Structures are given as structure tokens and as C-alpha cells.
């Protein structure tokens, strides 16, 4: 197993969380631990429950069963406004009746920092997302990319323990999206806050994340680093979702000394390290081998 992230303390601990909406089981017992300072992605096709999980962490909904701990504290019954998380909404949810600076300062009011300090922190946050000097702009005059930056600044200015991002880049055009992927990653490194990103774009998740939870139908199919996901997907479904792959029908010939010898139809005998073979490889078993880089040896 390569999902361990031993050196990191868990900041979000999701423990067998289930959630249904009427007949729809949006989450069926999801468990995961998100490490402090980690860039964590929830990746999966539309409707697999990513947003539902994010909303449970944020506190907009309560799980039917299971629990979520944030920084060691159980969150059951704690409303969204008292949780140390902030969210960047898919629609960005910029307040249309407030200008950019007022949007960013929105959550600071409760902290009663005083005019000067508030101003300083708003300016700092705007500079962080490359919007210095945009404070007096009306929010309706912003482009999609700028709205996204305002949403980021508005959340980051509160210095949350966890920043939740629901498909923050899906509304941007391709070029801007690629630029923002790099920028988000840089920003996350700079502020050191845990980011939990929801996306259905595998490239995005692979480029940006420390670890990725691949979700199908309300369950986590695999939770691993991008490297591991790419090289050793646990199932054909994960593999085909992650990207271009070659699938080989193969029969295991024998296992010896850390090597698995397999017979691939049409290719002949191949030896692979046991660590790369699907679990439970034993002589005589037939299966499918997925590989991004199959070498003949």
C-alpha cells in the first residue's frame, strides 16, 4: 500500500460517512484522512458524490452516519459558520451588491480587527491572488478568472485550517485553466493551508495534488499519490478514468523471488516486479494488466 502519508498529521478525518438524498445514496461509507498542509483532490465522474462530501466537511449538510473530525474536533452539530473551513464555490458566489474589497472583507467583520488592520489584510489577500488595486471594482465588472481570484482571496484572508474548492477551474477556458492549475499549486505551497479540491478532470488532479481519492458511485475506489494512481491503478475502472492506458489480458505463469512471470496474449512471456502486479497474483490466475509503460524484458 502506498497511500500512507505517515509524516502528516490528519487535519480532516472522514470516518465511514454515508449520506442519502431520498432514494439516492450519494455517499456509501467513505473513509479518508487528509493530512495537514496537503493538496488533496477528490476526483471522479459527475454525480459520484464529490460535492456532497465537500459540503459535509463545510457543514452545509450533516452526514446520515459516520463522522467527520476537523483538527481532532468532532463536527457533528457544528454549523458552517463555526467551522475552521472555507469554501470556494463552483459558481464563486461573489456578493453582487458588494465591491471586491467588501467581498474580501466580508468574513473579517466578525473578527473586529479595526479599520486599518482589516484594510491591510484585504490588500494583502488581493495581492496574493494578483488583484492588487482591484478593491474598488464592482463585482459585476469582473471576468470569470477574476471572480475566481476574489473567491480565493475572500476565503484565504480568514486563514482557514482547510480550504475547500468545488471545481474551481471548470468555468474557465482551457488556457486560463492550465495557468490557474500552476498558480493554485504555488499558492497552496505559499500559504501552507490544506486544500481539498473537487474535480472531474484527471489531468488537473494529477498535476496539482499530493494525493487523490478517486470516487465512483459514492465510494472511494482508490486513494493514492498521482504517481501510484498512474502506475498502479487498483482496477480497470480507475485505470480507464485516470487516462490513456494499455490493457493486456494475461495469465500468471509463476511467482518467484519478487518477480511475477506472466504470459500476455500476443506478446509472450513477460516478467514484472511483484510490487507492480495486481494483488493476489498466483500461478494460473488470469487477469488484466493495465500499464502506462509496459516494457518487454
Amino acid at each position, binding site marked *: 500500500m502506498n497511500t500512507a502519508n505517515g509524516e502528516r498529521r490528519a487535519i480532516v478525518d472522514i470516518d465511514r460517512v454515508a449520506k442519502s438524498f431520498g432514494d439516492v445514496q450519494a455517499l456509501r461509507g467513505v473513509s479518508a484522512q487528509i493530512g495537514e498542509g496537503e493538496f488533496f483532490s477528490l476526483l471522479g465522474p459527475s454525480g459520484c458524490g464529490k460535492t456532497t462530501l465537500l459540503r459535509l466537511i463545510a457543514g452545509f449538510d450533516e452526514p446520515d452516519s459516520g463522522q467527520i473530525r476537523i483538527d481532532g474536533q468532532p463536527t457533528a452539530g457544528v454549523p458552517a*459558520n463555526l467551522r475552521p473551513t472555507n469554501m470556494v464555490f463552483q459558481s464563486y*458566489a461573489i456578493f453582487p451588491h458588494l465591491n471586491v474589497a467588501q467581498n474580501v472583507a*466580508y468574513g473579517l467583520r466578525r473578527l473586529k480587527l479595526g479599520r486599518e488592520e482589516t484594510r491591510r489584510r484585504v490588500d494583502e489577500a488581493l495581492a496574493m491572488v494578483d488583484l492588487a488595486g482591484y478593491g474598488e471594482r464592482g463585482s459585476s465588472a469582473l471576468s470569470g478568472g477574476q471572480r475566481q481570484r476574489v473567491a480565493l482571496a*475572500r*476565503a484565504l484572508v480568514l486563514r482557514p485550517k482547510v480550504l475547500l474548492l468545488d471545481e474551481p477551474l471548470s468555468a474557465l477556458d482551457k488556457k486560463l485553466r492550465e495557468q490557474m492549475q500552476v498558480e493554485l499549486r504555488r499558492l497552496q505551497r505559499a500559504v501552507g493551508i490544506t486544500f481539498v479540491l473537487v474535480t472531474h478532470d484527471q489531468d488537473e488532479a494529477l498535476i496539482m495534488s499530493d494525493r487523490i481519492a478517486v470516487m465512483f458511485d459514492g465510494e472511494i475506489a482508490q486513494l493514492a499519490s498521482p504517481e501510484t494512481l498512474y502506475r498502479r491503478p487498483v482496477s480497470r475502472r480507475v485505470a480507464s478514468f485516470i487516462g490513456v492506458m494499455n490493457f493486456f489480458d494475461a495469465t500468471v505463469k509463476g511467482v518467484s523471488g519478487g518477480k511475477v512471470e506472466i504470459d500476455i496474449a500476443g506478446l509472450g512471456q513477460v516478467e514484472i516486479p511483484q510490487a507492480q502486479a495486481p494483488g493476489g497474483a498466483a500461478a494460473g490466475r488470469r487477469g488484466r494488466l493495465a500499464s502506462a509503460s509496459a516494457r518487454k524484458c
Partner: protein
Amino acid sequence: MSAGARAKGRWLRAYAVTYLIFLYAPVLLLPLFAFNNSAVVAFPLKGFTTRHFSVLWNTPVLHEAVFNSLYVGLSTAMLSTILGICAARASARFDFPGKKPIIGFIMLPLVLPEIIVAVALLVVLVQLGLKLSLWTVVLGHVLVCTPFSYAILNSAFLNLDRSLEEASLDLGETRLGTFFRVTLPLVAPGVIASLLIAFTISLDEFIIAFFLTGTEPTLPVYIWGQLRFVAKLPSVMALGFILLILSLALLFAAEFFRRRSERQTGGQGGFL
């Protein structure tokens, strides 16, 4: 388009124009006779005067009626808008048992004949031993104005993007704080439209006011009283003209704010 369809279109237009003339011709007579220099309301016209307006200026009873109407109108506007906000907010955001019938009952006065509402209210108030006053009129008017307030505010609340309220909560604001800092400012144009519509309806409502008023008549009830005196007719015309202009101004203002509310919250569709 075939010749038949074209002929049909022509007939339809002729019908619509005739219909509009019949509908609005009486209204057009108002300014004609309001400025007509004659003691009787009849053709032919006799020349221009503003003396019917100065009669209005010199009638203290009329001023009291105007004051009564403003009092009732403002109170009605405030109350029905507050009730409308509560009902609209609840129905736009939450599903609760009995929601459909409850909304149905709120909207019911819209289709009930006003005379029935008026008589029923009168019977109840008398049974309860309450004295008729301007406040009983307000009560009746709130009943008929709340459906309008609810309808306007409901669309304002429905058009409001829910994630804006969630964003506010997420940023640490309480539910109450969110209502005042995000929800209310965004539905404000709807609130203003509701105030204006309710005020306008209350201002010219007659039947309920007639039944429920005590010794203090509202403006329509006062006007009705004056109709018995032929000599007062021209000044009633002048008064009617003023009311017409005022109502139109209020309605246009209400529609202006309603459209603005729609733009702000991103919805569409017309009401007027």
C-alpha cells in the same frame, strides 16, 4: 401567410383596438372634465379652468380623508410586505408539511369576491366586539394585499442564488447576520416593489374600506359620499385625475424596482 390568415389578423387587431378604446375612454374623460370650465359634467366642453382643483384645496374634510388613506396605505404596505417576506422566504427555501395548502390560503383572497371578504370580516369584528376604525380597514387591506406582496417577493427569493447565503455562512456570519447582510439587500428591489404595489392597492380599495371603516372615511369612501351631490362632480373628476396620475406613477416605480430586482438576482419574466 395565407389571405385568410391575414384577414383574421386584421380582424383581431380591430377587435383589440376597439376593446382598448372601451377600456380607456372613461379614463380619458377624467382629465377632460377635470379642467372643463362648467359646473356640470356634460358635453360640450366649455373651456379651460383649474378651479375644480382649488375647490379640493379648500375642503378640509377631503384632507382628512387623504390623511386617513395615507395612514391606512402605509400601514398596509408595511404589514403585508413583512408578512410577504416571511411567507416568501419560507416557501422559497424550505419544504414543510402542508406547504401547498398554506400558500393556497395566502393567495385565496386574490380570487375571493371582495364583498364576501368585507362582509365576513365585518361579522367577525362585530362578534368580537371590536370597534371599527382605520385599523380594521388596515386588517382587511392586509388580507388582500399580502398575496401580491407574496407573489412579488417569492420570485425575488426564488431568483436569489442560494450559494450566496451559504457563502456568507461559510465566511463565519450567523444566519440572522446573513439575512441582513446578504439576503435582504439582494431582495431589496422586490421589497420596494411590494411596498409600492400594496400601497397603491390599499389607496384605491373601496369595498372593504366601506364596510370596515368607522367614522373616519378613506379617500375612496369619501369620494363615493360626494357622488350624491351633482355640484361636487367636477371636483371629484379633478380628484380622480390626481389619483390616476399618482397611481400610475406608483405602478411604474414598482415595476421599475421589480425589474431591477430581477436583474440583480438574475431571473426573468414579467409581472405587469
